[in-house]
């Protein structure tokens, strides 16, 4: 495999973007990324999007978006792995360049969620329709069942979950692209309405519109053309059963453990060498479980770590400096690529007020469903 790098990024501010269509959001983010990279060639386009067919009744996004970017006739494909769609699009771009097939690739993610009144149903299609959704369980419900068992087994406190949201909202105030740029308090989280016990509204990431893009090239091409490369030193993906109840364990996400293990092996680094991580905090409990399953903390100690401030911007391992899905917003297909945007900004010293000092290695983890898919990339300053 050839060495692959990110050489530019762009995203639009996530939010309820009533005035912008799916294609407009994507083209805006893509043009920013292409401009940031300063490239005049794109050999292929990979787009992550979860459920445009349901949300805006538009499939066939590869060709549509290549056309609207003026990039046709390049090969262009849309990839879907539920909320991990952006992460798998990034991995596809990585593989395309790594294999020697392409030299410069545009990777994007997009989701238009506010044109529909069927968001809950659309997201639920990432769970097992006949054996979970049929019985009335929702995504907050699935993560609520993980949370309840985590609290029972490990003594994780309800306040620990709230502190994840409080931290990520604080980070969001420093990110001009975040959907929410205001702080919240533990009391506000605990007073917000119950969605699925024990999870409340402010434990949940919001419904957002948005798009994010990165430009990838081989490291060799980036150097030869005077770009600012950040090397992708690992790309790994793993899967698990779609239905939560069929897993060996409920409070450990096997796909996260496995994708992390493979990524660390590929990069030749361990969790101790990671300077910051962007992880998939679709619900507060998800950040706690993922932080354990990626090896940042011992199993069961993720809640305590948040309580002790170890995951804040100046903590032992800053998690979700961008504000995470919770505050930055979660346009599902865009999320995995937005994580790469944040990592690129952090590793090129462009993260402004939320810049992590001396950041050299960053990890990004994007997850689909209740953890049936997990994608991990590790990036390093060249």
């Amino acid at each position: 495999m050839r060495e692959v790098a990110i050489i530019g990024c762009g995203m639009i501010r996530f939010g309820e973007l009533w005035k912008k269509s799916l294609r407009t959001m994507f083209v805006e983010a893509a043009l920013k990324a292409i401009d940031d990279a300063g490239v005049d060639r794109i050999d292929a386009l990979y787009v992550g999007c979860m459920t445009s067919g349901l949300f805006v009744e538009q499939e066939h996004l590869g060709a549509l978006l290549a056309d609207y970017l003026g990039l046709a006739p390049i090969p262009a494909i849309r990839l879907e792995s539920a909320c991990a769609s952006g992460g798998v699009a990034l991995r596809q771009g990585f593989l395309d360049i790594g294999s020697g097939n392409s030299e410069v690739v545009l990777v994007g993610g997009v989701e238009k969620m506010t044109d529909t009144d069927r968001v809950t149903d659309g997201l639920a299609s990432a769970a097992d329709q006949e054996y979970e959704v049929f019985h009335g369980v929702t995504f907050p419900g699935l993560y609520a069942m993980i949370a309840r068992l985590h609290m029972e087994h490990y003594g994780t406190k309800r306040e620990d979950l709230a502190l994840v949201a409080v931290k990520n909202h604080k980070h969001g105030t420093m990110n001009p692209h975040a959907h929410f740029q205001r702080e919240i308090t533990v009391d506000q989280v605990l007073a917000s309405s119950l969605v699925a016990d024990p999870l409340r509204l402010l434990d949940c990431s919001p419904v957002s519109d948005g798009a994010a893009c990165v430009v990838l090239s081989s490291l060799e091409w980036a150097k030869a053309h005077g770009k600012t490369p950040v090397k992708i030193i690992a790309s790994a993906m793993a899967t698990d059963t779609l239905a939560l109840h069929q897993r060996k364990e409920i409070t450990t996400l096997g796909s996260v453990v496995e994708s992390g293990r493979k990524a660390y092996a590929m990069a030749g680094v361990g969790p101790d060498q990671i300077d910051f991580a962007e992880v998939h905090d679709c619900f507060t409990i998800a950040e706690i479980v993922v932080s354990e399953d990626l090896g940042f903390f011992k199993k069961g100690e993720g809640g305590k770590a948040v309580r002790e401030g170890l995951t804040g911007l100046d903590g032992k391992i800053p998690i979700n400096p961008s504000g995470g899905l919770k505050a930055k917003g979660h346009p599902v297909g865009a999320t995995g690529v937005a994580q790469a945007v944040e990592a690129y900004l952090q590793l090129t010293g462009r993260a402004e007020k939320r810049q992590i000092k001396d950041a050299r290695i960053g990890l990004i983890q994007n997850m689909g469903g209740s953890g049936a898919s997990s994608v991990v990339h590790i990036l390093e300053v060249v």
Partner: protein
Amino acid sequence: MPTQRHWREIPQRYRLEGNFCPDCNRYFLPPRLVCPGCGRKELTPKKLSRKGKIVTFTVIRVPPKTQELKTPYPVAIVETEEGARLTCQVCDCEPSELRIGQEVEIVFREVMREGKTGVIMYGYKARPV
């Protein structure tokens, strides 16, 4: 939901007809064609026991739109006597009295209906004993 989609699941939903891998001692509902543990393709048909306990649970306050369910309603992951697990609603109970480890029986109930004139779909729910 298209009627045939429910109709195909009736053996599982009405009678808990799954199957079993004798090599791995694992139970599957719905039945599988291949055991994910060992790759065995000759799996033994097996009706799951209707006795079990709650592994974890939640109380849904914001329901999926399609099902028009009355909130709040509890949903649990239940482990049957033989160690198979399934997700279902918990009925005939006070949600605030539910707890992890609670013994339940799996009973036949209406799960959802398609609007006022559509198909009524039956299946399993758990009831505390």
